[in-house]
């Protein structure tokens, strides 16, 4: 297990290097002159002298490899430059907004798991009867609901009509309810389908029959022999739609005035604040890779077979 973590953390280095190079290239090849945007945001009229000065200040007059190298050297010391808009260090901006996003995504993930596992299991146990039909119907409809639209429907119901929940901002648990519902519905539905399918597969296996024949009480059979096996594909899948969940928070934040990283990114896009954009994508990569590592650790913890697989699989990744 410790080796799995160490190897994956070591791989994070080259992966970030590749992503940083790609990001740098894309931004430099992208449209426009960052110096122009810098002047526009700073409110300086773009005369030739001012442009030259801005290019010198931003280091744009140096050769590209040199620019990349100095940017990388700064990034290695966690210095991602300063926001064109606020003038504050990018890292400060991102760290200021990251906790809100992580809170929203984290609680949404917990809600997803807490509801989808029992619901999926219940549907599998009552196959083709009404709980199963209801769960399947809900899952089919639920994956089709746009999260930002769901957000508005919730606001209509809970804030406008009933007046129970605040429509905007971040504060106590009342502020969490609607954003979490909006973010998690889709993952919840996908997961319910997966748990159901996985549980059905496990229920048909001989070791479950044997456990029942041994006279184990049903709850014991379910928790020990069905659930644990059924959770393996679910954990793998969670790693995959974790990205969807994080992406979902980006949109939902804008509805509820949630002061997270999605709002920071959208305003950076509108202002063409390239340093913030660069820092955003790099940090999201780190966050996502770490989340996936956590998912893999959870998978290895549930399924001992995966531990060996993860160990044996490492040679594929290393040269």
């Amino acid at each position, binding site marked *: 297990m410790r080796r799995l973590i160490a190897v994956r953390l070591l791989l994070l280095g080259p*992966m970030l290097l*590749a*992503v940083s190079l*790609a*990001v740098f290239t*894309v*931004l430099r090849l*992208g*449209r*426009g002159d960052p110096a122009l945007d810098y002047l526009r945001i700073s409110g300086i009229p773009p005369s030739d002298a001012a442009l030259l000065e801005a290019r010198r200040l931003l280091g744009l007059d140096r050769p590209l490899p040199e620019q990349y190298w100095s940017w990388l050297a700064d990034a290695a010391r966690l210095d991602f430059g300063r926001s064109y808009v606020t003038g504050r260090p990018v890292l400060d901006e991102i760290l200021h907004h990251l906790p809100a996003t992580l809170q929203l995504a984290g609680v949404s993930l917990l809600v997803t798991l807490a509801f989808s596992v029992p619901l999926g299991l219940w549907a599998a146990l009552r196959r083709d009867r009404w709980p199963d039909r209801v769960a399947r119907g809900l899952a*089919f*409809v639920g*994956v*089709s*609901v*746009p*999260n*930002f*639209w769901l957000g*508005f*429907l919730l*606001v*209509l119901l809970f804030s*406008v009509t009933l007046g129970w929940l605040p429509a905007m901002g971040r504060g106590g648990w009342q502020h969490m309810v609607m954003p979490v519902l909006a973010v998690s519905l889709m993952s919840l539905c996908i997961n319910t389908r997966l748990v159901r399918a996985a549980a059905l597969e496990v229920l048909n296996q001989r070791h479950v029959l044997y456990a029942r024949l041994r006279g184990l009480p049903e709850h014991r059979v379910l928790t020990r022999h069905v659930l644990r096996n059924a959770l393996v594909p679910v954990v793998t899948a969670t790693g995959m739609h*974790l*990205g*969807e969940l*994080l*992406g*979902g928070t*980006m*949109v939902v934040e*804008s*509805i509820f005035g949630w002061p997270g990283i999605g709002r920071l*990114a*959208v305003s*950076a*896009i*509108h202002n*063409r604040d*390239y340093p913030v*954009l660069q820092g*955003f*994508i790099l940090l*999201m*990569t780190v966050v*996502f*890779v770490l989340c996936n590592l956590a998912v893999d650790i959870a998978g290895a913890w549930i399924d001992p077979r995966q531990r060996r697989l993860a160990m044996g699989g490492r040679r594929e990744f290393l040269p």
Partner: protein
Amino acid sequence: MTLLQAGMALRPPPGLRLASVSALLLAGLMLFGPWLAPYDPTEVALDLKLMGPSLAHPLGTDHLGRDVLSRLMAGAQVSLGAVAAILALVLTLGVGIGSLAGMAGGRTDAAIMRVCDAFLTIPTFILALFFVGVLGTGPANVVTAVVLSHWAWYARMARALVAGLKRQDYVLAARVAGTGRLMTVVRHILPAVLAQMAILASLDIGHMMLHVSGLSFLGLGVTPPDPEWGVMINDARAVLWTQPVLVLWPGLMIMLTVMTFNRLGDGLRDALDPALQAGGKAP
């Protein structure tokens, strides 16, 4: 007619039939929506703003007095057209690059796959957000951004399929018989790959729809006077407290589209998978 009869003889389940009809209607809207719309979708009439449903305006008017039904119909062209364009581009790029990697093998394969890995490391929507930031806002850039964030999934799958298929006996036989490399790919490998890609694509249409409308909703896609479903939801948020029904329609259209193509994708998978499992698996 024979095609229709053949289709009926298969006796698809009612849900699938409904989805097919709905897909045809959506395609019709995409192609002819702006011409079928009863009013000009961008015509502002402030004296008619926020009217409820009436005979003249079945779904009422929005905060600028524009006819909601016309905006929905004309918006279909932008929303669905963007998805169609993304689909075509992603399939071309993904299958092209994936097949190249699968056929070439060796270093080319490894290099292409590492690039894919870099793209797959980052969640698609976040990657799309980043690309919009680089390219700038606007519908064409949203399309490009979604294509750039999705292609690697298709490339990886196409590569895996091609790498498996190229060792199949019938492909080797074609090669031994003197068929050129390109011809072998086009005649013998791509047809099998495309069936599998069609399943992936039809299940992904809903995803793309949600990403496009999400980006538009954030104000990064279509610019305001033009109708688009995500933009319409964003427009409706200003009058959410006074005219809540306006937020309903565009969301329902997005939902209907996603449901339709998810159901079609499921049906397609059920219909095509057994055949593929028999013929398309690597030895």
